[in-house]
């Protein structure tokens, strides 16, 4: 399991290769990459700053991964979240889950993203033509996290 909070970019292909290296028991690799979009709620975005809570962020991501391991057959997982200044088209977050079967890989990957969106202490500030604004939490993200309740 690997969790990283970093300002530098990541490489999806390299992260998947690292997970699969030297083993042949993985049947399914589900992955997700979130990127900075050029527009949000109708306003053009020129830049984005990602603030976080140092110390708590990596711990909360590791806990979310542990929860996923407790629910599904997860052979390995990698979560990387970037912080600092980003621009449209840049990568923000990566989640890769390796499993023997695709159902587990898909579910664990989506679960990690849904929980990261509502539990991990990151905050986005967008720079638009009308100035900077903190992104509002979306109710749809709470709904997405709720769907995993037992």
């Amino acid at each position, binding site marked *: 399991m690997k969790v990283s909070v970093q300002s530098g970019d990541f490489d999806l292909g390299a992260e998947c290769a690292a997970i699969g290296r030297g083993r042949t028991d993985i049947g399914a690799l589900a992955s997700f990459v979130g990127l900075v979009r050029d527009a949000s709620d109708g306003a053009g975005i020129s830049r984005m700053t*990602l603030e976080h809570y140092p110390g708590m962020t990596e711990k909360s991501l590791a806990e979310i991964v542990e929860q996923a391991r407790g629910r599904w057959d997860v052979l390995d997982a990698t979560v990387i*979240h970037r912080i600092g200044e980003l621009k449209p088209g840049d990568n923000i*977050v990566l989640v890769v889950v390796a499993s023997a079967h695709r159902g587990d890989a898909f579910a664990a990957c989506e679960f990690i993203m849904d929980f990261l*969106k509502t539990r991990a202490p990151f905050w986005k500030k967008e720079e638009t033509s009308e100035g900077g604004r903190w992104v509002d*939490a979306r109710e749809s993200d709470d709904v997405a996290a709720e769907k995993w309740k037992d």
Partner: protein
Amino acid sequence: MLKILYFAGLREALDRSSEQLAMPSGIGNLGQLHAHLVARGGVWEALGKTKNLRAAVNQEMAAMDAPLKDGDEVAFFPPVTGG
């Protein structure tokens, strides 16, 4: 002492990212600390007005009835928006 951290829009509204506070007498949980801070008035009213305010105690998400003790690290922040 309590270490209190503020993040994102709340950090900007309060114009500070952290403070050290001697454990106030009569404060036993997060909600009581929150009320104590809001009662400072002025910019601190922002802490009372933040929609869906979230908090953490010792870097774990915590509800307003979470107990507090001397030496804890407390954080207040708006709902998270990463990912």
